[in-house]
């Protein structure tokens, strides 16, 4: 890409206020996630019963919890876990779902129709309940929750990608590529993937937010991260008997979840505008 083109695209990206706020939040959260270990002022697991349920102070910015642990350190440390797992789960779902959707849509035929019938049947079932059932059968903990999320989410990507491929497949440039003796693999790589990539990126950005909401909700109801893991939803669960005494135990972890999900939604919306997805799809 020429420098001038890169510059004009970057300007277009920043010009959108949605995207600017989204990018700012992403930089902040990304920085905290990566540098988390060096940023924490206290050991997030250090119990200190003499110092429990303290309010905000110079030493403890967000106060301390029922076991005297520093809430600020736990939230920063938890960012790595909550955001990292959300991104990781969606990455795996994309890596499994997209190729299957690509080939199923490209090859088509009866097998494709049969598979999609089953997929539609599963997809109309609530994903939250399916995740509960899978996590329930495997046993409630964080690893099994991630397995459950991947098992549920990859199907969505396969379904969406297949639909996009079916629509693109009939267009002339794919036909041209086919009659010029390109292999199926080459046609998919050279023509279809660049066409559907923006849709996948937008979907994945919004999905990371959804998965973070799901992980924290599961941890809150006790089916996800177990104490003393400082996952944000688990922190809310652990501290829920003490909210009346120390409201900061309730405020900060929830705020962290909301800002992270907001960031994902803003980025998703901003990217949707940037790629002009609605216009391209008519």
């Amino acid at each position: 890409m020429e420098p001038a083109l890169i510059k004009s695209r970057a300007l277009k990206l920043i010009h959108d206020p949605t995207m600017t706020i989204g990018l700012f939040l992403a930089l902040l959260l990304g920085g905290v996630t990566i540098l988390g270990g060096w940023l924490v002022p206290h050991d997030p697991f250090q119990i200190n019963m003499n110092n429990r349920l303290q309010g905000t102070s110079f030493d403890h910015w967000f106060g301390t919890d029922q076991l005297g642990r520093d809430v600020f350190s736990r939230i920063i440390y938890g960012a790595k876990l909550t955001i990292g797992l959300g991104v990781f789960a969606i990455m795996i779902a994309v890596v499994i779902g997209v190729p299957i959707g690509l080939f199923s849509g490209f090859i088509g035929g009866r097998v494709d129709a049969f598979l999609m019938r089953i997929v539609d049947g599963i997809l109309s079932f609530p994903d939250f309940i399916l995740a509960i059932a899978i996590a329930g059968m495997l046993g409630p903990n964080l690893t099994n929750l991630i397995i459950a999320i991947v098992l549920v989410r990859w199907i969505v990507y396969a379904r969406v990608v297949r639909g996009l491929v079916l629509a693109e497949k009939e267009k002339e440039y794919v036909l041209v590529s086919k009659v010029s003796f390109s292999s199926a693999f080459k046609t998919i790589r050279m023509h279809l993937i660049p066409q559907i990539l923006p849709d996948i990126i937008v979907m994945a950005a919004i999905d990371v937010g959804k998965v973070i909401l799901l992980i924290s909700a599961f941890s809150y109801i006790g089916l996800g991260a177990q104490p003393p893991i400082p996952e944000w939803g688990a922190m809310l669960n652990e501290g829920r008997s003490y909210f009346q005494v120390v409201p900061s135990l309730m405020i900060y972890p929830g705020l962290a979840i909301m800002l992270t999900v907001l960031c994902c939604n803003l980025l998703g919306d901003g990217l949707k505008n940037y790629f002009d997805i609605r216009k391209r799809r008519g």
Partner: protein
Amino acid sequence: MRKTLSIVASRLVQLLIMVSVLSFVTFVLMKVTPGDPIRDLLNVDDVVATKADEEKLKKEYEFDQPILVQYGKWILNVMHFDLGESIISKRPVIEMIVSRLPATIALTTGGMVVLFLLSISFGTLGAVYEGRWPDFISRWVAMLGASIPSFWLGLLLIYFFSLKLNLLPVMGKGTLAHFVLPSITLGVAMAPMYIRLLRERLISTLQSPYIEAARARGLTKERILFLHALRGSLIPLITMFGLSIGSLIGGVTVIEILFSWPGMGELIVSSVKQRDYPVIQGYILIVGFLVVITNLIVDLLYLVVNPQIKQGKETV
């Protein structure tokens, strides 16, 4: 009539596929899981279990048989409306779930009322003042609503309205006041999607010829909006409701736990914690049934409000 029958048939096929695939997957998962449900059960009371006890229980729950045999037996029982009995409480699963159903439906209805009020007001606001500051507010309400964890919103509401202001009960079920906070929480969690959808529909409806004609006839702005445009834009929302009944059942689970609401969601979460497999299996079956039946009703309603489909002019 033929159209109606074909809709019913295709929904029944969907129900069969959904339930058989999902129940089979959960059966297999149960089998491959390292922890043994029988040993879990025996260890509950911290009594040392003998090998004979274990064998006896395994026979009782038929865990000693091959998985396909177990699955086949379960399917046969389901056909007789028998979902087995809970490992923990020994009560019939179907009775346990059905007795929880009214509480969940009541809460869901409350949530729908809030959802309806929110989407109509903010959706209309966004469409009528498109591109101006009320539209901006509508957009941010939807954006924040989609980003806030519902259980956290519930916690904040409890904190301010119950603990600080002492206006509403904290949890449980009984009076109408108990409905307020859980319904708001559920409604806000579901609303963003509907606000955006209604706004978009309304914008395109307001540009359509029949609205132009109404304007030309000299009808007032309010009359056009509420009598004509809004009514036309609500039809797609019906379909949307069918599609989101699943996330409604999922979303209500967390809210039931938060407010100690004695519904189905509370039952399933405690069953998962105790690994009460028959209850989990039965729950999947009943949720699948509810989702498909709701969609069937939505399909048929759509047929009533939009007779074009019946004449085959439009496909569902």
